[in-house]
Each structure stands twice: as C-alpha cells, then as structure tokens.
C-alpha cells in the first residue's frame, strides 16, 4: 500500500534522539511529574525539534509539518515516548494550531503558526469554569464588544501552566439567546493583557501546575477572535476532536517498563528482588496484554488514517477510555513496586532547579506524583463518564 521504509525511518528517529536528547536532559525530565515539562526544558526541546524540521509532525507541510504518514507519526511518537522526551506545547501545537488553520484569517495564520512551531508562543487553555467542567456549554465568562475590543469578565479554571504561558485561548459568552451552545465565541489573548490575573491551584501531588485565571474588564481585540462571533462552539468541538486523537499505549508501555525496572531493583519478600516474585510478573504480563490490545487498536486506526479512511470520532473516545485507564494502571504498578517509599512526599526533589535528592532510591522520586497527576487523565478533556455517553450516542444510537 505504501513504499515508505518504516524501519529506516525508525532508525532515523532513534539516531536523532540519541544525538539530540542527551542523558543530562533526560535526567532532568525524570523530575517532571506533571502533564507538561516546565518551559525551561520544554521550550528547549521544541526548539530542538523545530531546528530538525520536526516541530509539528501532525501539521500540513505548508505550515511547517513533516509530511509523514500516520504510521510515521506513530513511530515518531512511540520513539519519543520510549526515550521519555519532554512533553511540551501540546496546547499550541495540537489544539490552537488546527483551529487557526481551519477557522483563522490569513493574518492570524501568519502570526500564530510560526510562533507556535518555534515554541515562542506558549498557549494555555481557558475552557472550564468554576461550576462547569465537562458541561462546557454552561460557561458564563462574558465578552461584550467595545470599539475594536471585547471586554471580558469572569473566570476560568484548571488552566495548566497559565503561570508560564504567554497566550491563552478562551471560550467566552457573547450571547445568552438561543441554546447555550449558540452564544459562545473563541478568543486568543496575551497573558499580559491588563485585567487578566492568575491564582495558583496546588494539586494533590503537591505541585503547582494548575491555575484559576480571572478576567476583570480584560480588553481582547476582536482581531484575536477565531471564527465568527457566537460560533465558538464549532471551533471548540473541532479542537476537542484533536485533543482526543492521541496514542495512549506508548506512554502506558513506557510506565510498565519503568515498573519492571523498579521491581528489578526493589527487594522481594521471599525472593531477591520483587521482579523475581512470580505474582508480580503475572500482574505485569496481564497489564501488558491489555496494552498490546490497545496498541493494536491504535495501530488499526493509524493504518486506516494512512489509507485515507477516517475511522470516526467514536474511535477517539473509545481509545481515550481504555488508554487512560491503562496509563493509570501502569502508573499504579510503578507505585506498587516502590513498596513503603510510596509513602514519601518527594515534591522537593521534583523541580528542574532542585538539588535535593529523592527520599530513598533515585527511582522513587517520580512515580507517586505521576500517579496522583494521572488521576486527572480520566477527568480532563471529557471525563470517562462523558466519553461513555459520547460512544453510546454516536456508535450505538442511544439517547
């Protein structure tokens, strides 16, 4: 069906990672338990990828994409996950950029896309509000026209990296008429806009990654609107499709390998290491089989996409349902392998600038914080309960 030499491509990616992602950086990334790497590390990596021409594998070539097919993208992502590269700029690259490409003006494309690609424009997301959540249509942050601007008032919550980002994308209410979905508008705003302020939210892992943002007569130029006024719902829906399209198996498999390595270094109860405990091996194997199934379905989807077939949105929801559950399970297995050191709060050793050693062995630093953070992956981006509703409605026609 295709003449691409995927093995050669995989080697090329591996070579690049081996030379451009040194052990020192990898070691730093080991201290990153959050969804995204801190920008100091993350922006460096995005610059590195961009310099190689690989800054945005999923973009069309005309905007700086790589021209890879779905299988190549999957190989690239799998290899990056296996090498544990920093997770960065997803909100710009995978969320804002696609909607700018589809709904943006030429001027918007010219301004935003290069900045996102280079890592210079760092976006955060302003969708959820206190009191809304998975029910986005109920949002209340208002935008009222005044001259060439919207005057925005209200608040957004769960804004990851708002304290690092220089731009935010927002859903705001520009009309209260008709259905709740009908009066919503999609805006982009610099975080430096007067009237925008940020309150940290400390998460259960003890980290500051999330924020609440406040809008007090913040002036956002109408020129920064994506799509038409009151048509932001369509933009958001398009964006969420992209958010749900990811591959889950590689990161889950990466954590499973990490759990095996921890087990091989931890003592067992009646055997030299935990890995020598047949029960631990069996449990690992059972999870690994679930991941093989997930990976095989992701592979089917990639193959279908590469062949020009769209397997449909429902598949994205199904993959998120089972994929996030596997990520959580793999992360939990890392925690289990740690034994009593799972009790230790390691947050002081978990920053790029920290020089405090972990409590217990080095590998004890990250698993618990990662596990706690990953509880969110079945909540954000449409909770598992909402994904079930979506599949029930779309795939099975249930109301």
């Amino acid at each position, binding site marked *: 069906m295709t003449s691409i030499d995927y093995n050669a491509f995989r080697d090329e990616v591996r070579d690049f990672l081996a030379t451009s992602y040194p052990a020192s950086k990898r070691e730093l990334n080991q201290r990153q338990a959050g969804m995204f790497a801190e920008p100091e590390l993350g922006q460096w990596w995005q610059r590195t990828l961009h310099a190689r021409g690989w800054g945005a594998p999923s973009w069309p070539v005309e905007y700086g994409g790589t021209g890879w097919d779905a299988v190549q993208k999957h190989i690239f992502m799998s290899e990056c996950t296996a090498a544990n590269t920093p997770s960065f700029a997803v909100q710009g690259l995978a969320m804002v950029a696609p909607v700018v490409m589809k709904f943006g003006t030429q001027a918007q494309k010219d301004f935003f896309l290069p900045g996102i690609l280079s890592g210079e424009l760092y976006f955060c997301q302003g969708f959820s509000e206190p009191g809304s959540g998975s029910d986005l249509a109920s949002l209340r942050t208002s935008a009222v026209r005044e001259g060439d601007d919207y005057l925005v008032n209200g608040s957004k919550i769960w804004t990851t990296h708002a304290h690092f980002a220089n731009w935010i994308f927002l859903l705001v209410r520009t009309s209260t008429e008709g259905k709740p979905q009908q009066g919503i508008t999609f805006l982009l705003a610099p975080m430096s806009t007067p009237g925008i302020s940020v309150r940290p939210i400390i998460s259960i892992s003890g980290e500051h990654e999330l924020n609440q943002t406040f809008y007090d007569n913040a002036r956002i130029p109408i020129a920064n609107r994506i799509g038409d006024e009151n048509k932001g719902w369509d933009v958001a829906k398009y964006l969420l499709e992209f958010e749900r399209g990811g591959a889950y198996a590689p990161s889950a498999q990466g954590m499973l390998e990490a759990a095996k390595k921890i087990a*091989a270094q931890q003592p067992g109860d009646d055997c030299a290491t935990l890995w020598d405990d047949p029960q631990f091996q069996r449990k690992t194997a059972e999870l690994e089989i679930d991941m*093989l199934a997930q990976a095989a379905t992701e592979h089917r989807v990639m193959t279908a996409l590469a062949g020009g077939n769209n397997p449909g949105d429902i598949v994205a929801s199904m993959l998120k349902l089972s994929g996030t559950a596997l990520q959580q399970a793999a992360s939990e297995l890392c925690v289990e392998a740690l034994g009593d050191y799972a009790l230790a709060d390691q947050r002081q050793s978990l920053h790029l600038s920290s020089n405090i050693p972990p409590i217990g062995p080095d590998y004890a630093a990250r698993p618990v914080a990662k596990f706690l953070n990953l509880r969110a992956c079945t909540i954000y981006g449409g909770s598992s309960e909402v994904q*079930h509703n979506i599949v029930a409605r779309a795939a099975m026609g*249930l109301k």
Partner: protein
Amino acid sequence: METPLSDDQRMIRDSVAGYLRDRYDDAERRRIIDSEAGWSAPHWQAFAGELGLLGAGFAEAAGGLGGGAAEHALILEEFGSALVVEPYLSTAVIAGGFLKASTAAAAPQLIADAIAGTAIFAYAAGEPNARSNPAHVETRAECRGANYVIDGQKAVVLGAVGATHLIVVARTSGGDRDPEGISLFVVDANSPGITRRDYRTISGGPASDITFTGVTVPASALLVPEGTALPLIERVVDEATALLCAEANGVMRRLHGDTLAYTSQREQFGKPLASFQVLQHRMVDMLVAMEHSQSITARAIELLDADPAERARAVSAAKVYVGKSLRYIGQQAIQLHGGMGMTDELAVGFFFKRAIEIERQFGSVEYHLTRYTRLANAPAAIAA
C-alpha cells in the same frame, strides 16, 4: 471499525455472510443441532462446492485458493456470528495445517479430499488426565513391525461424529509430559478398536469421548517422523487458537448486537432499557472490549509466521484478552437480556454458551496468561 480487505478477501467474506444470512439462520441452526447427527452434511457440501471455502487455506498447486490464516479468519468470524457447528476449524485449519506440513505419502490426496469435502477431520488430542499442556500425552502408540498400535483415551473431541478421519496425538516414547516422543497419526475414523461416547457440547455441537483399544495403523499413518511432532503441534494449535479468536469475534459481535437490539426495543419503567445510563455505559464497555479483541486477534494472526516464541506470545496474549472479553460480554449480554436471556428461546443463550466453550478451548485465560508470562519474561526479554 472496519478492517481493510483485499478484493478477494471481501468477496470471500461477503459470500460467506450472504450464505449464512440466507441459509443458516438461527432456526436452521436449531434444526441442525436438534438432528440426530448434530451437524449438516448438505451445508458442508455447500461450503466445499458452492462456496469453495474448504480450499481457502491450501496452495493453488494443491487445488486450493492460495490463502492462509487471514482468509480462515474472515470465514471463521462469520461462522462465529452464525454459530456454525460444522468442523471447519478441525478440518481446514488443524488437519489442513498438519497435512500441509506432512511428509506422509497420503497427504496430497487427503488435501484434495478435504477441499472436495469428502474427507472430514476431527482432532483427537485432549485427554481425561491432561489439562492444556500439549506435551501431556498419555495415549500410547507402540511400533509393531510395519504397524503402530494405539491405546488410550481422548476427551471432548469436537466433530468426531461426522469425521471420516481422526488426527490422533499419541506418545511413541518418553514419559507422560515429555516434549520428545510425541507422534501424529491420521486414522480412519471407523477403524476397529475405536469406540466413541457421543454427546453434545453446551452450545449444541457434536462432541465425543473416544477410547482406542489396540487400534492398528500402518507406519504410513505417521504425519511427521515418529516422536518429532510437538513443534508442529504447537504451531498448528497456535494457528487454530488465533483463528478461534476470530470465531470469538463473530460470537461477540452477535452478543453485543443482540443486546443492543433487545435493550432498545424492550421497555421498563416506561422507557427503553437502553435509555438507562448504567446499561448504556456497560454496552460501551462491551463494545470497547470487542474492538480491542478484533485488534489483538489481527495482531496474533499477522505474527503466526514469526519465530515460535514471538508467535506463541502473540497468540497467548490474544487468547487471554479474547477470553476475558468473551466472559465479560457474554455474562453482560445475559444480564442485560434479563429473564429472556435465561431461556433458550432467544439465540443469545447459545452465543453465550459458545463463548463459554471458546473461553476454554485450547486453554483458558489462566493457561495462556501463565504461558505468556513465562515467554515474555524469559531473561532476554528485560533490559535492565
């Protein structure tokens, strides 16, 4: 989610699906399993002649269609969705697999007869004193001059009642679980010394316990050289296991589809059952398990030609995942059908019982998880 097929493959699938829809519906299947034989010779002849299916897995030079496991999988998935009881797996896949690898002089003719539908095979491997370990063989074949004399018992042999030949696993040397010393014989099903106790499986297909008492066969009945059969058995049983998973996917498709249809039309508390969120979410979980079963089965089938360890790992992984999915989807299908699911008046109970059977055939979830764990964690498999 659709899987891409070649034109030839689509043609095979559509012709099988069409045949089953038109001529092998639930009522016809009931007639077949309620008949004395418990299987249908006319349908078998149609599979051979009209549909030309029985050569799907044989080379064109041997009179077949030149296909392989992928084609078997298409056929068996459709057969699963109609609960076909005729012995396709034991004849086309298992006997076919052995015959293709056989050094026996009779093999080419047996292949031709299998394609024609005149040779029908049952696989006599399982024993009352063994579980799923294929090296555990207590049935003995003793060499006496130019003959072998077979003595022993085989348990739960599917399809023996209509078979013209039995493929018999017997030990020619070694201890009960010795990997060496296992041999494969093709035996006329009506040979003197063979006695059967015939019965039905819970889903209605024919099965037998078979006793071999001094059954004498010529040395030419050996399918491969004496005592060397285990690696071939493992390969063919892996292939059959992967294809049984394909059949399972057809079974699950019906379990899910029937459940969705039933809960959509059946009302309770003034609303269709399918409008209750708890039932909706459960049917979504069934669907997800089904999609993943499809995927991991396809993966196992692709890896059938890999090296034996990788092949075995992929097949055991698939059987574990599919086994768990069969269990979940089957049990939920009955639960969501409520009282109607408990009767044999609907088809769903038969699909559930077939799911229970497949869960066990060629080894349970526990067996394959043990096997996978051993293979995956061989010292080389972990990079420290």
